[in-house]
């Protein structure tokens, strides 16, 4: 009766993993591999544009305007990817004020003073984990890898559209705390890249939270 039996097939793993049974469980190595693949993919998207722009300019200087258009594409593609990453920390529509207040109280009970203060300023919850330093939002989370240079943005949310915003964050935070590896496996990777690339696409408050996560990550590693 008083036992704390764990759920899921593995000890302590998230039950939601059953819905993504085909995915290998994430770990630091797979995260690093995903980051490199993401970088390679970005290079593969941009280098042809840069190469074509250089070639056109060299062969026919009169095509310089076209070369500028190609360079604009080479610039825009990584920016669009970063914007997609920044989108995971967007805020959603709020519920009624009473519900929001109650949800905020519960979330506050789950946090220590520093995390509560950061959430009050930025709306994001900072959580240290084995994969890095997480920032948990309402409909996603990002993790700053040890060293504070690379960030991984995940799209993940609680099911149901009627939850107060703080409850959405609390759902993700509790799942993350219960099984960080499972959380990173269930969530969909939306972006991976340098922190500075993501920072430019974030709002000012989210930038503050990212700065705190990068500093925490740099100190921890």
């Amino acid at each position, binding site marked *: 009766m*008083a036992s704390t039996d*764990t759920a899921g097939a593995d000890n*302590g793993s*998230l039950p939601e993993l059953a819905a993504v049974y085909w995915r290998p469980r994430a770990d630091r190595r797979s995260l690093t591999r995903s980051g490199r693949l993401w970088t390679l993919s970005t290079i593969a998207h941009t280098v042809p544009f840069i190469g074509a722009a250089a070639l056109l300019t060299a062969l026919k200087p009169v095509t310089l305007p076209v070369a500028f258009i190609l360079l604009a594409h080479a610039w825009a593609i990584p920016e669009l990817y970063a914007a997609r990453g920044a989108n995971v920390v967007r805020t959603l529509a709020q519920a009624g004020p009473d519900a929001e207040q109650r949800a905020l109280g519960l979330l506050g009970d789950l*946090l220590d003073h520093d995390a509560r203060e950061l959430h009050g300023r930025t709306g994001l919850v900072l959580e240290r984990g084995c994969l890095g330093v997480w920032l948990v939002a309402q409909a996603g989370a990002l993790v700053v890898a040890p060293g504070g240079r690379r960030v991984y943005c995940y*799209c993940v949310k609680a*099911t149901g559209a009627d939850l107060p915003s703080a409850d959405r964050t609390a759902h993700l935070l509790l799942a993350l*705390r219960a099984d960080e590896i499972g959380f990173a496996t269930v*969530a969909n990777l939306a972006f991976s890249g340098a922190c500075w690339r993501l920072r430019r696409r974030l709002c000012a408050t989210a930038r503050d939270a990212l700065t705190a996560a990068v500093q925490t990550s740099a100190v921890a590693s």
Partner: protein
Amino acid sequence: MSRLIRMDQTGHTTLVEWTAEDPAAVQEAIAAFRAELDQGYYAVVSHGEGHAEQVRELPVDAPLVILRRPIAGG
């Protein structure tokens, strides 16, 4: 006093409160706990920063048991 709460559209709802020394209250809490799990909720006991535990049986001695909805990649 232990509490079983459910995160829902109201912020959260306290479903039942009990003490380990009150068998009737414990039985009521277990029944409420199982009913929520049957509805698709997952139960978590938070142990502070970085630590929480998924539970499938009611931990009678835990001060706070939280029921959450499933999460999914967006």
